[in-house]
């Protein structure tokens, strides 16, 4: 009876359901990202034996800054433009990254190259808003721009793994692969993408690490900057865990055979729970990075090299199975 019901549901209903799911996923990331940052700060402070803020402190910061007037600056409008562009790009690219469910076949989804390009573009826009703060700040920003930009060529081997397919097709193709045998290459690829998120340099952390970086913005700009940064990091981590463990995602009609609506909804709830668990595990890596006392330049070099080498390794292993 349920199977028959699935077949009677027209495509446009699935289309609307998937669109709604994308909006819910986007909302999940927007709500969860500052909480994750707060959790990382809380955990690292606990492990260091320092007094800690509550987990919701990052959300409070963002809310507080969004309702404060900005300090007048000659670059205020320019900064707003850059940060708003970053936010729009982040949402445009990230909304297609599956958080707990894949989309239905026929739903327009971009490929990995386009999504990663948009996310890197958003990161560059965020950095650009720091470039207008003066001579010394601009030196650091130039290095940051190079560090963020170099992610694009570093991710080229990972792009090759997807073979140009859109993200849904790519994840569907690796859905049945075992992460221990023929799918291990994709676990490595996920690790490569995960490094991008883990080694993100948080200018707004106000903890003084990484060359004493401080976010020199005020008011609404600072609030939006912090939110965008957190979301971009969560999107990188989500993309990474999707590639590494795709079976944790829900599958709607026609992805891998017929699935009933109730089954799909159950899988969605399960996938959301698993997503929170996966992010919690990955956040341990982020906490670990906070204990590594090194400069932001060094971190960017390590990040670029690691992403490229892991990607090449993953590509070579995948090439052995599917030349």
């Amino acid at each position, binding site marked *: 009876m349920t199977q028959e019901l699935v077949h009677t549901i027209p495509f446009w209903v699935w289309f609307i359901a998937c669109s709604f799911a994308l909006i819910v996923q986007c909302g999940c990331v927007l709500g969860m990202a500052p909480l994750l940052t707060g959790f990382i700060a809380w955990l690292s402070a606990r492990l260091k034996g320092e007094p800690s803020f509550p987990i919701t402190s990052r959300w409070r910061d963002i809310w507080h800054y969004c309702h404060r007037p900005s300090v007048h600056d000659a670059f205020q409008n*320019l900064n707003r433009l850059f940060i708003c562009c970053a936010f729009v790009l982040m949402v445009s690219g990230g909304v297609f990254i599956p958080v707990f469910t894949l989309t239905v076949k026929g739903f327009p989804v971009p490929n990995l190259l386009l999504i990663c390009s*948009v996310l890197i573009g958003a990161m560059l826009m965020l950095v650009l808003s720091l470039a207008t703060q*003066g001579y010394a700040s*601009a*030196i650091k920003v130039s290095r940051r721009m190079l560090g963020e930009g170099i992610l694009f060529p570093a991710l080229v081997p990972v792009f090759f793994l997807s073979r140009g397919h859109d993200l849904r097709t790519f994840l569907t193709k690796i859905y049945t692969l075992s992460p221990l045998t023929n799918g291990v290459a994709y676990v490595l690829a996920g690790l490569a993408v995960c490094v991008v998120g883990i080694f993100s340099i948080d200018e707004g952390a106000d903890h003084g690490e990484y060359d004493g970086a401080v976010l020199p913005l005020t008011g609404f700009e600072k609030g939006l900057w912090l939110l965008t940064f957190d979301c971009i990091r969560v999107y990188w981590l989500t993309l990474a865990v999707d590639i590494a463990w795709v079976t944790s995602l829900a599958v709607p009609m026609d992805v891998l055979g017929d699935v009933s609506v109730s089954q799909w909804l159950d899988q969605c709830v399960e996938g959301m729970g698993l997503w929170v668990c996966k992010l919690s595990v990955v956040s341990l890596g982020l906490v670990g990075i906070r204990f590594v006392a090194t400069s932001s330049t060094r971190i960017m070099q390590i990040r670029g090299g690691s992403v490229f080498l892991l990607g090449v390794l993953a590509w070579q292993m995948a090439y052995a199975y599917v030349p």
Partner: protein
Amino acid sequence: MLGGLGGLSVLTGVPLTSVDHRRTDIQCGLWGLVALLAFLGDFFQCQGGVTWIPIFGVDGLAWSLLLVLAFAGGLLCSEREILACVLLGLGFLVSSPLVFGLLAGTALALLPAKDWKALCLPFAVLPACIPVDNPLSVFLLCLTILQTGWTIIDQQGASVVVPVCTGVFLLSRILVEYGHLPFVIQIALLTCCGCVAVRGCCLVFYANDLEKIMRGVVMAWYGCVVSDLLLTLISTLEGSDIFGIALQLGLGPCFLGLLVVLAVVHRQEIGLFIPFKRLLVGLGVFQGSLMPPSGGFMMVWSTLEAVYLSMSSLKPASAFVLLLLTTFQCVVFVGMMLGLLRVVLALLCPYEKEIHVEKGAYGTTLSLWGCMGGALFFLLLPKLWLFLTHALVSGPAVFPSLSWNKGLFVLAIPESTNFLVPIGVLMVMGVVLGGVFQLMRLLGVSLWTREARIVPVWKQAMPFVEGVDVYRTKTENVVRRELVLPINATASLGGGRFWVLGGGYMSYRDRLLVRCYRRSLKVLRSIKRIACYCGLRCNQQGVAWVLLLLGTGLVIGLFVGT
């Protein structure tokens, strides 16, 4: 029309006194007509020779490059550059390679170049004048790539189009005749492209002048485009045809956008309203960047698609080399994008001094908007541009269907199921933008009407103090530029500096080596001085010497060929 443009650029003074104040407008109008004619000729695939002047003949390649040349021609401001552009356009329309060599060589001789480059530049067209089976041909092709690439450094504004179009036209014509080349020759030619691209990237990072940065960007772009051309025409890869799509897209929206930025940067006093100028620069930078769905992004997308297809039939070692080559190309693109960001920061920041602008010619402004409009038009209709420029890599194309799936709006790759819809990407971004604004309105957060708390400058918390005290050593204008354009900052990420010839005790052998080194330096300096003197004399004597030398080269080429 080209003849009229040429005459208008040569004739000055008494004969044209009455229209002197409208000279720019007339030139821009004529360039617009040339562009329209080239578009129509290319669209309807007009080909063949002219019966009453047998030396002239057109084909798809000539129309395509004439279209690009016409877009750039309207942006030129110097009569000498316009004449060079006209000569090159006529060169595209002739059917004889020797006459093309003479016309293109003269065009290159008219371009500004420094020292020995002025002397050597016209010889970049020599491969057109000798048979392809000549043993010197490949060597001369390498020199052509290097010369046309390196001369971009010396060009001003949109005149970079002359060496770029010369190089692409020449290589496209000659490499089609070669067919597949041995692997070593492929590597040699690709290395030349890499040298050009790396030099451009270095210029992007080290230059402290906006125009130099843009020249570096164009140089890096040229290296990538020529490498795509080489991979299309001489490689034995399975998906080599797809590299041609990357080349076509590179010459389209991406190059037109870069030309607009170059023209705006070159003519700071251009009679444009400042917000319009910033809009033009922003759109031009977008076209050259890696941000989807810009022309640069489409170029990279096509390259990666071509590599996907090529890798399926390659051995692992070859596939790995191809992977490294693609990564290198992406690094070059990132370098280009960082250069463009430096330009954006300098042009969009409020530190820019408001120059008193006199009302400029309407033609120049219209040319800028026309070029940018063309870039956006071909960005949204990529299949139309691919149809128009199909002759760059192969014969005439079939007109694309008008259906949505495989129609004009879709960039689709043959033999692949993947496609890109630029207008779709823009629509998604537009929807997100609208959604964000609506959400902000619902939350009561306004973007542009918030009150700003004004505090004194000393309270605005400058968190970092390091580096030299630029405030005392430089003028105000320069200081303000450096505030947003740190020189050499990015280069220090890669490592330290190189120290040559440190002090200390040296053995007799080392001293001998140092002496030889110094003497060789003296000899090199003398040779360079002679070359510079020759170049200077050539410049003083107009193009007569250059034409003479070029003619000698042609005779020698023919003699060697026969």
